[in-house]
């Protein structure tokens, strides 16, 4: 259960190249802002098309010279840096959005389990705009997990949080790694986060 990625992604007038070897646990993409870390995640989930290379997760080919699955068929849970909760839907409907679309065989938790796991049971009827940064981030993680993904991609999930909240989310991420044994691709520019979480660090830039 891990990533096997080697891609070249055009970004503006240059190319972002990255190789990620299959390693169990969390792989951190580390580097300064603007180096193309988010571009790599976008390419892995299928929102941006690499010029060449391959993307495999747990043996399934999502992209190579002959394959280019659309995002909805890649099964990558993507936790965006800016959350991107649907503003017109309640927390409950945000959480269930991907769950309803996932084939039952791919689901590995239900709403009750996810809300308990993330400590968000009392937020279900709230509107996303009323959530704090830490709450919104938990909901975004829950939404991704409930879509039954084969891997989780997280783009600086701690960057907008204060120290207390960071620790809470970091513990959630460790539990996703340990309890759900889901491969995680984790983008950060913070050395301490990366040292604490990652089994493999891929430096960009």
């Amino acid at each position, binding site marked *: 259960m891990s990533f096997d990625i080697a891609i070249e992604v055009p970004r503006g007038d240059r190319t972002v190249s990255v190789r990620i070897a299959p390693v169990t646990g969390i792989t951190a993409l580390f580097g300064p802002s603007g180096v193309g870390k988010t571009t790599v995640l976008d390419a892995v989930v299928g929102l941006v098309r690499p010029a060449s290379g391959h993307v495999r997760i747990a043996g399934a080919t999502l992209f190579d010279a002959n394959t280019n699955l*659309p*995002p909805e068929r890649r099964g*990558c849970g993507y936790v*965006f840096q800016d959350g991107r909760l*649907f503003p017109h839907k309640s927390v409950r409907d945000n959480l269930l959005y991907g769950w309803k679309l996932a084939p039952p065989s791919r689901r590995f938790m239900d709403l009750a389990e996810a809300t308990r796991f993330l400590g968000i049971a009392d937020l279900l009827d709230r509107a996303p705009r009323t959530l704090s940064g830490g709450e919104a981030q938990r909901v975004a993680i829950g939404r991704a997990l409930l879509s039954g993904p084969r891997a989780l991609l997280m783009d600086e999930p701690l960057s907008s949080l204060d120290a207390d909240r960071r620790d809470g989310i970091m513990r959630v991420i460790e539990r996703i790694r340990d309890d759900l044994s889901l491969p995680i691709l984790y983008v950060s520019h913070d050395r301490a986060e990366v040292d604490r979480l990652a089994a493999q660090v891929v430096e960009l830039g």
Partner: protein
Amino acid sequence: MLSPTEWGIVALSLKVALAAIGLTLPVAFALAWVLARKSFPGRMLLDTLVHLPLVLPPVVTGWLLLLFFGRNGAGGRALETLFGATLMFRWTGAALAAGIMALPLMVRAIRLSLEAVDRRLESAARTLGASPLRAFASVTLPLALPGVGAAVVLGFARSLGEFGATITFVSNVPGETRTLPLAIYTALQVPGAEDSVTRMAIASVLLSLAALMVSEWLVRKDGRRSHVL
């Protein structure tokens, strides 16, 4: 109160305006989507064509419709051979004229509301398993809906007021094409019909005010945007 004839005129006006909106909304939505989302050669030309009824004198638009849908026009001949139908002197022609005059306003309102929706939300929906169509229908469309509603109201009000293109294209036939503005204009030519003019003018004002209030309500309901136009 309105006389039976005047009620008939109000009813005809509503029928023409509603048909105009029903006809124009799908077209306006498709055009707004294409103009908001796609880049292709000829985009500027399409944008200009859509806006043409807004800048042309309505009489010219009506004359162009007459050329195309008249007895000898390509559109008119096609309708005649395919369906044995004609738009000339018919309320359907009045609806077409009103719809075309409303088109640019509706396209603008819908396009702005589509452009105001964060496209990254659609990307998020895709990563959660939604096809492009489902992502659009479940995320972008509901978020753009107040703008679509405003477009409908605006188009409806514009259609109710349509005069120049209508009278040029389908003339001023009582019971068929004589909508409120045409009826008021006609009554003004008749000595002693001032009371009728007043009553129909009040009916026009009330209908327009009602449309405006619905539009304000739709825009206010959507707190994230302060205005649609």
